[in-house]
């Protein structure tokens, strides 16, 4: 709890500015890193813009799927990996049925819905039993579900689940190959309605879909369910006392996130043009969460703006870090190493900052008490 005496604690303009910097320290740090590495990397601006726009189209939908659980107070949801798996399974089916292009993408999305709902329900039920520890629980659930995914894809596809085309099957006759080519589907969403400005290709349709999702999220916040989620996210007990069904609301938020993540994964993979069957999904959760945090989000607060800023900064670093690293040390591996290191680093920093912020809030109460006492003495 904080009091109305807030302003007295930090009132001067200077300290306000300092506060602003403190609160946005992660994005500022990344802006500085990018500003230094862009000239070092030696890439042309048009190349960079082209790359960044491609990656925005590829990643933003996935990252947006993280916003709803944060709104419901469930933190950064590694359970989105489950949605990614659902999306991949759907794409495997669709490519086996040889349905390509836009129809293939739409069909894959439809097929992924029941799978992701099922996985979302599983994840949500478990998370309702692990309140306050959602992040680590969802992280472990994603590992566990990865086992189930491998069971299905490696052993059941073929003998139990019919897979017709040998091009996607392992030579032994069952199980899916390490790579499933989506060549006939590659960037069909991005290329439809694409506009070229100079050398920069803008995937208009993909951005339209992302825009629609953004509008949906904005609209959703104004619905009764959205309002309930915000209430549950901020104080579960108060929400329960007011008659809001806390568990159900949390469950819905996870299911929505999982379904959106499966759509996001399909958009991501159509852009890449192939599925790395056993690894595409494994780090996607971590990279999405890292990008969101780089954009200035925290464990309990994230906006659409954070998503866009995060994707731009995080992926600029991704693009320029290897070359910049090579330019400085003569070894391009250093940049490669740097990006993984940074992803984990950002998540760790975000978690530490979340805890220290909570502690600071607590010690501030004491300071206010001291302040009130001193003022009282002055008055007497």
């Amino acid at each position, binding site marked *: *709890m904080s009091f109305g005496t807030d302003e007295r604690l930090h009132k001067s303009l200077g300290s306000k500015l300092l506060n602003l910097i403190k609160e946005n320290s992660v994005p500022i740090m990344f802006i500085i890193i990018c500003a230094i590495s862009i000239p070092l990397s030696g890439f042309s601006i048009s190349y960079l813009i082209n790359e960044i726009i491609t990656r925005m189209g590829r990643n933003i939908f996935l990252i947006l799927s993280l916003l709803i659980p944060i709104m419901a107070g469930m933190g950064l949801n590694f359970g989105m990996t489950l949605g990614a798996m659902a999306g991949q399974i759907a794409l495997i089916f669709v490519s086996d049925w040889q349905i390509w292009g836009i129809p293939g993408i739409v069909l894959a999305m439809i097929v992924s819905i029941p799978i992701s709902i099922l996985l979302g329900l599983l994840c949500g039920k478990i998370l309702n039993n692990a309140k306050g520890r959602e992040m680590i629980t969802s992280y472990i659930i994603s590992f566990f579900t990865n086992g189930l995914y491998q069971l299905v894809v490696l052993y059941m596809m073929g003998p139990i689940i019919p897979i017709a085309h040998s091009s996607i099957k392992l030579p032994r006759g069952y199980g899916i190959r390490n790579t499933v080519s989506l060549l006939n589907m590659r960037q069909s969403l991005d290329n439809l309605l694409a506009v070229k400005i100079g050398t920069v290709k803008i995937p208009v349709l993909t951005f339209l879909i992302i825009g629609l999702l953004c509008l949906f999220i904005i609209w959703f916040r104004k*619905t009764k369910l959205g309002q309930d989620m915000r209430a549950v996210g901020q*104080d579960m007990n108060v929400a329960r006392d*007011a008659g809001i069904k806390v568990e159900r609301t949390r469950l819905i938020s996870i299911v929505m996130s999982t379904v959106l993540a499966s759509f996001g994964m399909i958009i991501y993979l159509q852009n890449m043009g192939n599925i790395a069957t056993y690894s595409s999904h494994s780090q996607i959760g971590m990279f999405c969460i890292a990008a969101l945090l780089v954009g200035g989000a925290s464990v309990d607060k994230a906006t659409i703006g954070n998503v866009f800023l995060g994707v731009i900064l995080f992926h600029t670093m991704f693009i320029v870090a290897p070359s910049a690293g090579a330019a400085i040390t003569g070894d391009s591996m250093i940049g490669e190493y740097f990006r993984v290191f940074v992803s984990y680093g950002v998540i760790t920093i975000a978690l530490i900052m979340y805890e220290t912020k909570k502690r600071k809030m607590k010690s501030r109460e004491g300071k206010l*008490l*001291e302040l*009130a006492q001193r003022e009282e003495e002055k008055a007497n």
Partner: protein
Amino acid sequence: MTNNYNPLLEMRNIRKDFFGNQVLTDINFTLNSGEILGLVGENGAGKSTLMKILFGMDIIKETGGYDGDVLIDGKKVEFNTPFDALEAGIGMVHQEFSLIPGFTVSENILLNREPKNPNFASELFGDRLDTLDYDQMEARAEAAIDKMGFSIDRKMIITNLPVGHRQFTEIARELSKEQLKLLILDEPTAVLTEKEAETLLQSIRNMAQNGIAVIFITHRLHEVLDVCDNVLVMRDGYVVKNVPAKETNVAEVTKMMVGRQVDTAASGSARDFSNSRNAMTIKKLWVDMPGETVRNVSLVVKEGEILGIGGLAGQGKLGIPNGVMGLYDAGGEVEFYDEPIPLNNPRKCLDASIAFVSEDRRGVGLLLDESLEWNIVFPAMQVQNRFLKKYLSGWITWRDEKSITNITNHYIEKLAIKCTSSKQKSRELSGGNQQKVCLAKAFSLNPKFLFVSEPTRGIDVGAKALVLDALKKFNRENGVTIVMISSELEELRQICDRIAIVSGGKIAGILPAEEPSEAFGMLMVSQVK
């Protein structure tokens, strides 16, 4: 009363016990529409339990329900959940805030009762996808705030709101419910400034004029007499008196609240220490202990005395020892025999030979899954390196099991701790015996100074007498200065030399223990916040 007249609320022969411990006995009262009833009594008098029964709180059902009848408009009702009570038109504003911190005032007033508009999506997926009607929401919030007669900024986020306004937001939430007939206010003025409290009293009068009945629970007696039609005084689970506010006064009500049937006056053993050395000097202490905030306390404890600290719950008496000992965030100055003691550092206090028996027996006081031996000698081992054997010129230290068993058996005998052996786990003991273990633990440190917090809470009469006796003996025989904090004034008066009363986080006054109960009672309610 005639048959065609029914009061809004009638409670008949209400009885309630918690596992054999009678907390309410034969409570009877009636309340009419537009009437304001003041409910007063010490902590533990049964006010909260009575209101919990009326409001259908889960805890009542879980502990075996209650006896007697609750009648609304002459019809017998039984509320299983607070939602049933709300349905019947009863609203309650609890002591703790129940607000969503990041929502605006309007959003909180209409929490989960937001006006909605259906749309295309909600036709398909159910009404939870209805969009909220923000204009309607503001209008209804405004109407509720108007009804209250105190204006608050509807668009403000709760976190940025002064505490008093949060209280008004809660009241406005109840008023926004159309079916509201009876409003229970549990210590609503506790967090308000004087001016805000006056406004609240005025708005309570407004509500009553509009036909809403109000039950007003508070420790601020002058407010009760000011605004209420009737005053219901409770003590030890009984209604002592139900009297029109006009026919009584603060002194009389105080007397009814604290006065025991037999005034077992102080033991007469209170001593005068005004010429002794200062053992501990506390200056301008503040402590941020949730629910027990201490504000600007200055206090001198004399060497060799037993100083009692009393007061109503939530007024800050527990914050004083917890703050000095460094268990909660604190500021100010503490000197121990003219040496400054740093705050927020429990080890320094222990090193200075100050011991603390916490009110949180099971959380702070005991290692529940360890033996009595460990519990009793653990601090002495950790802090003073006692009960240890040294080998290889101090490079290796070993526990001295024999002396540990000896001292434990010594205390088991001395304090009559009921246990199977000194190896028994402390979890398995009864509350009273656990308390004795806590005392033994503190005694085994051989402290110069001892804080004892709520030593008799939740233990039976026999154990109580033993604990008090042990403390008195420890003080007399070893010359240890003791500060004892307790909610029970009578027990403080039995063993203390002086008693300080804390009210509103401050020391309201320090009196010799022989002063009559009423004098202490007046101090208790003097600065209640």
